[in-house]
């Protein structure tokens, strides 16, 4: 059984939790930009966390299914309709064959996730179904979806009404705080440069994609220049180039780079950062590694309590 794309929207891709083990040859993990929203979509429809779903950017797709499927839409606030009737977001519901599911333009946030019970069953490439657009690898033919594409779906074992509890649904209209562990090259910045990053918010620019988010704000001052001997670039790494402006490196990042990295955005705040629209702002807050690990544990715990099932799944 499968799904049919009537209209893909500007950039809809197949993503699972990402590719592991190929960064060492320069292939990024890819996977969802907002992992939390992605995981909740999968869990709402009873999928494993690593099932493949669709990541929709700014404007969602129009889709039809060949058989009855439970689906859920999370992430960016794209209005969801089924043959024109409004459907809930952050909740599981059933779609019958022949009806057209539509995700409209995002009122807030950037990326929405559409999970389908059974998961999108495109071929595994290097152990993952995630699409790496620049490398034309994985997903559906290594590219964003197009009108007329037909994607295979995995076998679904039914579904049940479920929703994400209100207090766990993020508000994408405000300016989030992203926690940052300084390093690996925080010693290559002046005290004033480090202070600048944490003192005032930075604005998201339009030069932002799945590879990285370029921000604009107070200049971050280097000591001894911005070049380093190229080294590995972590997920969430904040690279500061010659103009003193930060670039946060994301799911499709380069594996290595030759610019100083002042700090790294913590994994649990990267998803929310990826929902910041150009023109919106984000603040950075300094934490230690130990604090980050405590925050991660608390974050995972909360994620496990976010869904209310109306009956046992």
């Amino acid at each position: 059984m499968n799904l049919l794309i009537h209209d893909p929207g500007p950039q809809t891709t197949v993503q699972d939790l990402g590719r592991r083990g190929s960064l060492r040859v320069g292939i990024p993990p890819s996977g969802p930009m907002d992992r939390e929203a992605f995981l909740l979509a999968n869990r709402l429809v009873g999928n494993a966390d690593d099932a493949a779903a669709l990541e929709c950017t700014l404007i969602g797709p129009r889709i039809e299914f060949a058989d009855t499927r439970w689906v859920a839409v999370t992430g960016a606030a794209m209005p969801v309709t089924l043959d024109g009737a409004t459907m809930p977001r952050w909740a599981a519901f059933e779609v019958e064959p022949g009806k057209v599911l539509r995700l409209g333009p995002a009122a807030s946030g950037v990326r929405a996730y559409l999970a389908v019970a059974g998961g999108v069953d495109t071929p595994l490439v290097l152990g993952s179904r995630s699409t790496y657009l620049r490398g034309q690898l994985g997903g559906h033919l290594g590219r964003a979806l197009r009108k007329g594409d037909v994607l295979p779906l995995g076998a679904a074992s039914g579904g049940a009404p479920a929703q994400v509890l209100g207090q766990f649904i993020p508000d994408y209209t405000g300016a989030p705080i992203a926690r940052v562990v300084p390093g690996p090259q925080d010693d290559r910045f002046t005290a004033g440069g480090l202070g600048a990053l944490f003192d005032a918010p930075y604005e998201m620019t339009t030069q932002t994609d799945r590879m990285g988010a370029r921000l604009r704000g107070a200049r971050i001052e280097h000591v001894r220049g911005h070049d380093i001997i190229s080294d590995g670039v972590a997920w969430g790494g904040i690279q500061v180039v010659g103009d003193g402006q930060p670039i946060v490196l994301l799911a499709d990042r380069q594996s290595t780079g030759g610019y100083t990295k002042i700090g790294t955005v913590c994994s649990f705040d990267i998803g929310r950062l990826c929902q910041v629209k150009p023109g919106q702002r984000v603040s950075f807050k300094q934490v230690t590694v130990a604090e980050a690990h405590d925050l991660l544990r608390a974050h995972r715990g909360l994620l496990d309590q976010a869904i209310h099932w109306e009956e046992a799944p």
Partner: protein
Amino acid sequence: MGIYAEPRFLPCGDQALSVELGDDINREVNARVLALEYLIQQRRLGGVTETVPSYRSLLVYYDPLTVGWDQLTRSLHALWRDAQPEILPPARTVEMPCCYEGELGFELEAAAAKLGLAPDEVVQLHSGADYYVYFVGFTPGLPYMTGMPERIFIPRLEQPRLKTPPGSVSIGGIQCCIYSVESPGGFWVLGRTPLRLYDPTAADPILLRAGDHVRFTAVGRHEYDAIAAAVADGTYTPRIETPRASSARRGGA
């Protein structure tokens, strides 16, 4: 300069750390980096999810809910003591056909003029050397190499070009690199290899590995085209030698 007396553990967020072993680009430091990565794989170090070697450091991704900072850095420190170049498996040597002619080597003449050499001399010097791959990265499959004779060390382009064709064999500073996908570039393009350093349609999309040796063989345009056609058909097998494999062949003969 060179190898640190003790490794530096640098935090890279909540799920990664960088193990930095030295402060410059040299083969000895890099061999220690590759040996450390090899030991992590061999001993299946708990909690480590992925590793990324580079010139003088190893980026280690880990699951902090499985292993904490203190335990992980202790384990890595213990492995670092054993991470000597001798433990690495024998290095492969990959033969890389390269056409230095015409449009494929579109900056050969300019580079030669800059170096005060004849283009033929640059080709001889470049193709006569043994190159070492420190690591592969930035874009999929791109090797970071040194090995050039000093006479063709050259400053990078003052104005980087916006697009470089994949397969372009190029030099800058003391380094040689081969662009693996179309990308901007600041190195001088001397020629092009018909081999694919990154082929997303292949079961194993990446040709070169950290620790490999590369030798360029100058080929004419006709041979370049023939190899490129065979690569496109999937009928070309790159020539890759490992000391172990070659001795096994001798033993069996």
